[in-house]
């Protein structure tokens, strides 16, 4: 068990390092020294001499090799960097240093810490909603399979999955927030200051994420449950005199939930990495929106790299957790 976890952690770290390299190399190669050139041109006509440009390039490190740039960047994550130059200004960037954001002039780490609670709150609430709703609906549909309610569920899940998510989110915001004012305000209100307000502001985005995603979970759970309900051990439970609800929610669901949890772990990681549409439409100041803003010219490369790195870490960690969780959920799986 410990050996397995250590091996998995090591390989996870390797994946994260490789991802960071790819991202860094691709953007560094792709953008070249354009950040230096951009700044130099902003100085005004005639002021951007070749000597000036060279000194800016030197300040920003573009005269050094790709490898040494990556090394500086990667080292900064662990020990910080003393002098980082953006647009001719000098910044201090303590560890973990992911560079300076062009948009705000803050360290990327500072901005990330500020934006992340909103994304985290959105993801936890939304994911809980779709997991609970989906598993419940799916289990009940499996119990009453073939009935009208079951067909409605399967049918509605097809409709929901064929409507683009941003449309649902946009319409929900227009009608429920703007027109009917059922949810007059949306967005992220710091949870440490007023949790009740956080909940009321986040309720609509949670509902939109929960309801649009729960149908696929309901269908998946239903499929797993229908399969499980045909298992011999379900008949054994019935032959013991176990009550129908207990057969359903203890015996059947216990086995059917395992693959559902596996999928959920990965979906949840995706949510944690930021939801662009939801954050944008409901004006939630999270990292999805942040990353999107960073893409406007001039590209805030450090922010983009940071969001990619965070997503990679989250997906890798989620995978690891799912694997470890699996051995607890299914006693037959031994990961020693």
């Amino acid at each position, binding site marked *: 068990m410990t050996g397995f976890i250590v091996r998995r952690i090591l390989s996870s770290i390797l994946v994260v390092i490789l991802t960071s390299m790819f991202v860094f190399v691709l953007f560094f190669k792709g953008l070249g020294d354009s950040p230096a050139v951009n700044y130099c041109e902003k100085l005004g006509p005639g002021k951007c001499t070749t000597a000036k440009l060279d000194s800016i390039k030197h300040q920003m490190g573009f005269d050094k090799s790709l490898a040494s740039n990556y090394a500086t960047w990667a080292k900064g994550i662990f020990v910080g960097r003393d002098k980082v130059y953006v647009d001719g200004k000098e910044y201090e960037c303590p560890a973990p240093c992911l560079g300076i954001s062009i948009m705000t002039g803050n360290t990327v780490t500072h901005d990330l810490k500020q934006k992340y609670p909103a994304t985290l709150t959105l993801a936890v609430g939304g994911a809980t909603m779709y997991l609970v709703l989906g598993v419940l609906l799916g289990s009940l549909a499996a119990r009453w399979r073939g009935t009208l309610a079951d067909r409605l569920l399967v049918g509605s899940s097809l409709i929901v999955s064929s409507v683009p998510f941003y449309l649902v989110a946009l319409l929900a915001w227009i009608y429920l927030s703007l027109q009917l004012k059922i949810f007059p305000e949306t967005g992220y209100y710091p949870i440490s200051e007023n949790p009740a307000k956080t909940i009321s502001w986040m309720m609509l985005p949670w509902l939109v994420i929960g309801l649009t995603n729960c149908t696929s979970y309901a269908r998946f759970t239903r499929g797993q449950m229908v399969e499980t309900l045909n298992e011999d051990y379900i*008949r*054994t439970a019935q032959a013991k005199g176990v009550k129908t609800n207990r057969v359903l929610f203890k015996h059947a669901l216990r086995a059917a939930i395992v693959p559902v949890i596996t999928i959920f772990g990965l979906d949840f990681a995706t949510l944690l990495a930021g939801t662009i549409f939801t954050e944008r439409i409901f004006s939630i100041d999270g990292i999805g929106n942040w990353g999107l803003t960073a893409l406007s010219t001039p590209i805030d490369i450090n922010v983009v790299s940071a969001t990619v790195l965070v997503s990679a870490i989250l997906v890798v960690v989620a995978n690891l957790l799912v694997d470890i969780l699996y051995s607890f959920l299914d006693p037959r799986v031994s990961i020693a």
Partner: protein
Amino acid sequence: MSTDTFERPSDMAAPANPDDPFLIVEDLTVKFPTHDGLVQAVTDLSYTVERGKTLGIVGESGSGKSVSSMAVLGLHDPKHTRLSGSIRVNGQEVIGAPEDHMRKIRGNSIAMIFQDALTALHPFYTIGDQISEGYRIHHRVSKSDAKKRAIEMLDRVGIPQANRRVDDYPHQFSGGMRQRAMIAMALVNDPQLLIADEPTTALDVTVQAQILDLLQDLQREFNSAVIIITHDLGVVAELADTTMVMYGGRAVEYGATREILTHPEMPYSWGLLGSIPDVSTDAEARLVPIPGNPPSLLNPPTGCSFHPRCPHVDKVPGDLCRTTLPDLTPGDRGDNHLKRCHLANPGEIYAVEVLPEIAPDLIDPETGEMIPELAAVDPDEV
């Protein structure tokens, strides 16, 4: 340990006559409506099982063995099943009984052992949890008392170090131990009727024998009625007092086990006997498979459902086998031996045509006739 924890619903309060058999099945018919039509799984089945006695139900896959015993527990989904006839457990009607009532019987006065214990036990719960769950459904006891009971039962069925193994998962048990655990689970409430559905089919031969011995011991100890469903005539010979041979959802031969095994009067039973390999007998003995396939239950054959596979159809005059379903009637050997066959002289055909092929050592080489003392061989040795 009281097993009378289920209450008798007042609307069916028929006082049980203690002399009546514990289980009386009369004209049981089970049909499953499907998209392709009505599946006639069991038709007009009648049998009884007394306390302390064992009924063996023999037949091939799809003959209705399991379906009929699932009906005794009311385990068929009422939405997808049509049941008729009567099943009386201890004097109480089971067919049409409310679900609540059935749940109090299931696992309590009637328990079931299933074929493949690996799939019949829940893979994610410990053996102990699964046994004590069954106990706690029918007894108001604490979790720790139920666990003690589980350990006691595991010990009783011969699991070594039961107090440790109780926390194991099914996959940590060997096949034989899993089947023992399954038996422990079935017996945890001291059932008066135990239905064992192919309890040894998934096991190897030595373990089979151990499990059968265990079942026999437990039956003596608890004086319970036992139904053993099998396609293995050896199991029947070992355990059953009476035997019912089923084919195509109907009983085709029914009587004392020794009778059925030594003087079978129905060609399907001959076929079953002919297809048992026996290493101890004459090398001349042939293993004769029954030709053809089990009948379709959607479109059962006309007349006798065995006629398409029966090599003796020509011996019955007037195409009777193809047109008329024979009744289950007493044959030449008295009221205790029922058979469903048009053949007028089945005993003679068996002795002259069938036995020499499947068991030449039972035939006197001089006279060409069945050796009487060998023919009445002890069922335990069959």
